[in-house]
């Protein structure tokens, strides 16, 4: 599979602070690649470097296996942080500027504005827009060059639930067109809902990388409740568990891969315990994410 972006040992230092620490990753074509991390973990800095607005301290990156230059950026639709436009210009005038920079002879400005539902407001100045409209205008601007790759940095930041749903729907549609999307977010839910692959950054280092479906399907947790009594010790004796936690109503047992609630139920029955409640939960990305962060603290 073609690699859209390859980052090798990227380093960015601000004085004594290391914002990006020896980061290497690959984004294959056709994926929706999520970069997950808490605020200040180096997501935007990394995106800033690969878009040439931030100078790197060390390392290399390649777009389409080539050394980066401006002609490649013209084929990328990207938004970093907040939507940036000339406030005194209208949506159409702003997009004309983008088209001029990207060398688009015949940009479909009305088309992209219709797609993000800003067509009716196209002759209003950018400064009169609400935050949601501004976000949508940046997506329109990123779509303008019909890009092979889109980079979105916190695209749903500050939006209401309906706006968030709309933007996510838009991202899914774009992904269905076969475009590669790189999405930075601190919202796990968002990454889980729209991404195919993801990595986790913490303090500028990558602490995890893999496919979303793998994490969502792999490990299960089983909620166990008994009518009365303390079964904590009994549960700890179960070989199929990696972790047993006490919950308000009962126990949460983290299962080893390959093991399931059936094995647990059988074991408890053999121990002479009958349960009143047994529920398998797929471990959410959020839980795993928090665990990863916690683990890297212990490391």
């Amino acid at each position, binding site marked *: 599979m073609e690699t859209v972006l390859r980052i090798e040992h990227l380093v960015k230092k601000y004085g004594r602070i290391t914002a990006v620490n020896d980061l290497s990753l690959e984004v294959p074509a056709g994926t929706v690649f999520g970069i997950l991390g808490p605020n200040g973990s180096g997501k935007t800095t990394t995106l*800033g470097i690969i*878009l*040439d*607005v*931030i*100078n790197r301290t060390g390392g290399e990156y390649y777009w389409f296996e080539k050394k980066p*230059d*401006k*002609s490649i*950026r*013209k084929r*990328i639709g*990207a*938004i*970093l942080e907040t939507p*940036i*436009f*000339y*406030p*005194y*210009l209208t949506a159409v*005038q702003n997009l*004309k*500027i*983008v088209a*001029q*920079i*990207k*060398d688009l002879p015949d940009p479909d400005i009305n088309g992209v504005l219709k797609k993000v539902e800003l067509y009716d407001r196209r002759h209003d100045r950018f400064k009169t827009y609400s935050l949601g409209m501004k976000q949508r205008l940046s997506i329109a*601007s990123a779509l303008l060059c019909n890009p092979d790759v889109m980079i979105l940095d916190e695209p749903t930041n500050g939006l209401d639930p309906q706006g968030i749903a709309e933007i996510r729907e838009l991202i899914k549609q774009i992904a269905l067109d076969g475009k590669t999307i790189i999405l930075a977010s601190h919202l796990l839910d968002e990454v889980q809902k729209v991404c195919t692959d993801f990595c986790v950054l913490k303090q500028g280092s990558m602490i995890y990388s893999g496919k979303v479906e793998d994490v969502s399907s792999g490990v299960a947790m089983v909620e166990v409740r008994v009518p009365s009594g303390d079964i904590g010790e009994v549960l700890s004796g179960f070989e199929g568990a990696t972790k047993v936690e006490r919950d308000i109503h009962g126990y949460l047992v983290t299962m080893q891969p390959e093991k399931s609630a059936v094995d647990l139920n059988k074991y408890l029955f053999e121990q002479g315990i009958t349960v009143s409640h047994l529920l398998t939960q797929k471990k959410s990305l959020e839980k795993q994410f928090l665990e990863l962060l916690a683990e890297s603290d212990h490391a």
Partner: protein
Amino acid sequence: MLKLLRLDYLKVKNYRPFWVLNILYMFLVVSVPISLLEFLKWLKMKGAEFEGFDPMKIPILFFPDIWQNITYFYTLPIFLIFLGIVVIITISNEFSYKTVRQNIIDGLDRTDFIKSKLLMIGVLALASTLVVFVTCLISGLIYTPDLDMGDVFNGMEFIFAYFLYVILYLVLAFLLTVYLRRSALTIFLLMLYRPIEGVLIAIATKYDVDFITDYLPLQAASRMIEVPFPRYWFQEITDYVPLVPTLVVCAYIVLFVYLISLRLKKSDL
């Protein structure tokens, strides 16, 4: 290059302050010969005696004197600051709106950005030079009593000196903006800059090293167009554009552009 020019045109086309300031500057340019004439009329009315000489006959607005007289006025900081503010606000906007960052993300590179702003400065300088040239030409044609075509274009090198002066001044404004980024502060510093040179000159003169003052940017620039008026009380003046200051000005333009690109290439946007 035409592409970059068009890009900056799209940016300022609907930006009202840009046009207001430019038009104000144009008014100022046109008003100079008119107010000079009014001043002479006023002198005459007041009956000022120049050893029995009619002030209206002082050839301030006559060819060939007019080129130096009037371009001298136009290069006073009080006039140039208008163009300086145009440059400062259009460039500092790019930093405060962060649009320079988005421009680069969209596919410009830092050199393109610098080039596009230098082109804008070039166009501003050319346009204002054209206005100055036409104003001088028309005033000269109106006021010169015995028109001798040979005299008309004699001294036109001052128009060229004016052009260089404007370029230097605006590139200095660009430089200050790139380093300070805040428009109000930059405008303030640009206004203060000439007085600062004045202080330096005073200090240098005190310690008898005033030869170095000719190498200060704006001092060198003003040496291109010497104060012309003492010639009307029979003093020697430099009534041509001397070579050395012109070269110094060119060298400063190159240096400033270099410092601008040094800063922009190194900084995170």
